[in-house]
């Protein structure tokens, strides 16, 4: 590895090593864009030029009918001789349902017959005492008493705030969805690592999984997997798995060369090399993926509850439907408590398994003396529950609530500060947002096509240019130009703001242990708190419209910018830090000249994820009345129009893929310039 010269690392995008003419390419392109945006209305009036400005209707073709026809075939007629496609998916649904029903039996229902006044409990589920004891013990086992107290506290919150029953319904689906997501993600990631060809084929699929809004394919999923929790589980896995695949491939590529060579030297087979050497060596990086799967699974809780998963997501929806903000926040925070507890547990187990075993040779029972005690607690609390109900389920009289506090907090802000907030909103809206939207909508589509293609060509050559051009043409030909430009405006602005807030936060988080923990907790909360919870107060304070939507997108998409920046800064090779220290860098120089430039590839990956999350929020922002692609998808769902939904969903995906490829190409160039070869190089 070569040490990059500082002036290289901080060079402008059109670096000094390039010929003079190319240095002016982007400034000139920018000026031309501004001029065209301004002059487009005038040009449009000229005869014969209209087709250059607005997408001509002759170009728009009806792709929706084709999709509708294909989906109809897939759902109703496709078969493999012995059985139909739908029977296959129903079979998969049945298989997934078995562990799910088992989880529900243990956590939620036990064995009950009848309902309401006639319900008879033959066998109770695990009591709240037992479950809290189990997770607390797991916390202690994995990370000591501090973690035990934290996890126990999270679960006590669920009981004390009356969220227990719903939380267990949600937990039952999470304990099924997360292993599926992590396992499949790991397998696909390894396969992509082994075969660059598979990697190339997989990446667009991952982008589609992550960016085609779930509402777009919800209806076919319901047909194929049946109505209920299993369909919700399938949708959750589809949405939550892609980061695991990406992280796995990246992590395996960044395992140090020496370890690879070592594996080759001791004569590992391919399987041994992967599973015994590379995967364990990449574990800290892989845990970022596990973290994302847990967080994204819990993110799906709301949408999953719309199609029959029930649980906390349903409570949130129900509370907000009645504008019971307090109840919504409590249920939302219960989702956060669950998410954070599960995340910390999984992280701790990963760290623990990285340590060498301490007391080998002893029997399992001898090493785990707490296990019989735990079983005893579970059985005793269950038996006690038969004669004294509070031992089984947390009694209503002991519960506390903060609902009135939240409602009056929002009310106070609303009554006293609405005018100030309105003034701030109007300033931003009238001076930045509306002009930007007008500008983007006015831009000639041919120019946008040219610009994106040019960017692809400069960053990645002819192939990337071709891909970019094809995707832009797809959006134009699908008749989605206007909603696509509004999407670009809303998401672009949100991503810029999220990056401006997120990268400094990430730097701060990497600067110290305590700051890292506080900020980590903050972004975990933001990412797992269902956006619905804060969408309603945001609407109350800022009215419906683009501004409220932008706030929701920024809050949700902030997390990866922070997380990847911090991770990138922390994983700068120590020899570089030492080299910096030896040459007498100040703290500030260390950050700007060494750590930040070296972390640029990781930060770009974070921005990439921020864009993906921003795009995935589009369907939610449609709920506050935006007019973007998300709204198209939402309208399609409400009309059960699979064709319109999928085409609009693919429009979102096209934007996402363009962004992803351009950023990846940019990151690869940066890496090459920094001499970071071997990282993600395929």
């Amino acid at each position, binding site marked *: 590895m070569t040490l990059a010269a500082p002036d290289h690392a901080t060079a402008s995008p059109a670096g000094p090593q390039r010929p003079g003419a190319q240095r002016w390419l982007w400034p000139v392109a920018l000026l031309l864009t501004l001029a065209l945006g301004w002059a487009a209305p005038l040009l449009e009036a000229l005869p014969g030029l209209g087709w250059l400005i607005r997408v001509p209707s002759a170009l728009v073709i009806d792709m929706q009918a084709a999709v509708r026809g294909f989906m109809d075939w897939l759902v109703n007629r496709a078969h493999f001789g012995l059985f139909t496609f739908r029977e296959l998916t129903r079979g998969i649904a049945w298989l997934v349902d078995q562990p799910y029903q088992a989880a529900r039996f243990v956590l939620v229902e036990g064995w009950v*017959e009848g309902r309401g006044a006639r319900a008879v409990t033959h066998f109770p589920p695990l009591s709240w005492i037992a479950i809290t004891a189990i997770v607390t013990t797991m916390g202690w086992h994995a990370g000591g008493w501090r973690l035990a107290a934290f996890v126990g506290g999270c679960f006590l919150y669920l009981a004390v705030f009356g969220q227990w029953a719903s939380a267990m319904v949600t937990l039952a689906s999470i304990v099924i969805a997360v292993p599926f997501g992590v396992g499949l993600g790991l397998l696909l990631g390894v396969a992509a690592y082994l075969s660059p060809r598979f990697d190339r084929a997989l990446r667009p699929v991952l982008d589609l999984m992550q960016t085609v809004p779930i509402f777009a394919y919800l209806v076919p999923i319901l047909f194929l997997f049946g109505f209920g929790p299993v369909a919700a589980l399938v949708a959750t896995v589809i949405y939550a798995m892609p980061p695991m695949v990406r992280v796995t491939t990246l992590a395996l590529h960044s395992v140090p060369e020496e370890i690879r060579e070592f594996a080759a030297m001791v004569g590992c087979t391919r399987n041994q090399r992967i599973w015994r050497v590379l995967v364990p060596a990449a574990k800290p990086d892989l845990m970022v993926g596990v973290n994302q799967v847990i967080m994204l699974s819990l993110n799906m809780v709301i949408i999953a509850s719309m199609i*029959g998963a029930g649980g906390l997501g349903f409570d949130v929806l129900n509370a907000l439907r009645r504008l019971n903000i307090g109840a919504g926040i409590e249920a939302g925070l219960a989702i956060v408590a669950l998410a954070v507890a599960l995340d910390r547990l999984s992280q701790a187990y990963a760290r623990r398994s990285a340590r060498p075993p301490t007391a080998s040779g002893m029997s399992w029972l001898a090493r785990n003396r707490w296990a019989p005690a735990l079983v005893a607690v579970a059985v005793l609390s269950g038996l006690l529950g038969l004669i004294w109900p509070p031992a089984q*389920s947390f009694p209503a009289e002991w519960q506390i609530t903060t609902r009135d506090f939240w409602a009056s907090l929002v009310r106070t802000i*609303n009554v006293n500060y609405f005018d100030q907030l309105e003034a701030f909103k*109007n300033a931003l809206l009238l001076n930045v947002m509306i002009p930007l939207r007008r500008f983007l909508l006015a831009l000639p589509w041919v120019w946008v096509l040219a610009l994106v293609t040019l960017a692809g060509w400069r960053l990645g050559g002819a192939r990337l240019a071709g891909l970019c051009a094809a995707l832009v043409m797809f959006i134009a030909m699908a008749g989605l130009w206007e909603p696509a430009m509004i999407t670009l405006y809303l998401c672009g602005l949100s991503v810029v703001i999220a990056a401006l807030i997120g990268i400094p936060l990430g730097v701060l988080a990497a600067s110290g242990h305590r700051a890292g923990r506080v900020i980590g907790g903050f972004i975990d909360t933001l990412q797992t708190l269902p956006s619905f919870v804060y969408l309603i107060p945001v609407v109350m304070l800022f009215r*419906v419209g683009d501004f409220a939507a932008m706030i929701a997108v920024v809050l949700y998409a902030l997390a990866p910018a922070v997380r990847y920046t911090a991770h990138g800064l922390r994983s700068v090779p120590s020899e570089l830090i030492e080299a910096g220290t030896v040459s007498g860098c100040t703290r500030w120089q260390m950050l700007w000249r060494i750590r930040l430039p070296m972390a640029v590839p990781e930060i770009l990956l974070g921005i990439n994820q921020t864009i993906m999350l921003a795009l995935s929020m589009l369907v939610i922002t449609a709920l506050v009345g935006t007019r973007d692609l998300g709204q198209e998808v939402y309208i399609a769902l409400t009309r059960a129009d699979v064709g319109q939904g999928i085409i609009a969903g693919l429009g979102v995906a096209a934007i996402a893929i363009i962004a992803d490829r351009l950023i990846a190409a940019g990151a690869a160039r940066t890496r090459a310039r920094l001499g970071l070869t071997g990282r993600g190089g395929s």
Partner: protein
Amino acid sequence: MTFRNLMASAAVVALGAGAPALAQVESSDPIRMTLHDWTGQLITTNIMARVLEEAGYNVELVQADYLAQFAGLKTGDLHVAMEMWETTGREAMDEAVATGTVVNMGSTGMEAIEEWWYPSYVKELCPGLPDWTALNDCAEVFATAETAPRGRYLGGPVTWGGFDPERVEALGLNYEVIHAGTDAALFAELESAYQRQAPILLWVYAPHWAPMQFDGEWVEFPEYTAECYEDPSWGINPDMAFDCGKPRGPIWKVAWAGVADKWPGAASAIEAFSIDNDTMGGLIALVDLEGGAVEDVVEDWLWENEDTWRAWVEG
């Protein structure tokens, strides 16, 4: 909170076979009824479910999206949806019924109202209300920085239809229609404005808790007729349709086509189900405004109205 209540609030509630059958039923397979996310629908569905249980059927309540549920109703994964509003669900319902796999089980007896609405305190600023001709004089009252000098009317989600932009144009109203994306966003703005006693003009519908909790009135447009929507020459504006108020329409019950074959008795009880706006309004108020549990409110209603629902089952 007892375990049973916890179960009920878990929203996906399986009704087992433990209950003794009161009557001979055609099939003991559970009838799956869908629950949505508004209180009125939860009450309607729970009443129907309890009545069917009393008649000896097994019922399973499944959480489902209002429109996505048609996917399940068509395949027979889901069986009964108790509230399909003429005003919002008509297109999806017609599409589903046209496939032959879903049937309309008749009206619930409730009538959906939706119209432009304002809180009563706005009348001080705009004394001409509720007559629609006063709206133009008050455009400034309802204006925001984005819409000024035009007034701001907060419409429902685009998907609700309603022809508000057309209405604004046909009646020459100096207003801009802003679409809220959801019901929740719509009423969040109302609550916000009501707390500040600020002017607001928006789409409200009934039966719903909002017109019960907030004191206000419907704007009175020229009354709806079918010709008004179809015939431009009808009404005040001779060149445009939609120069009138919105239609009011029934709330329908829909079911999987197989219900009538598999559980004929249940099907006739579902068809017979009927309840009026005032009764439903009272029940919604008990839940949303007084904090009662849906299950308790439904039990009380069943207790007090046994003759009513017995007739559905036996008739």
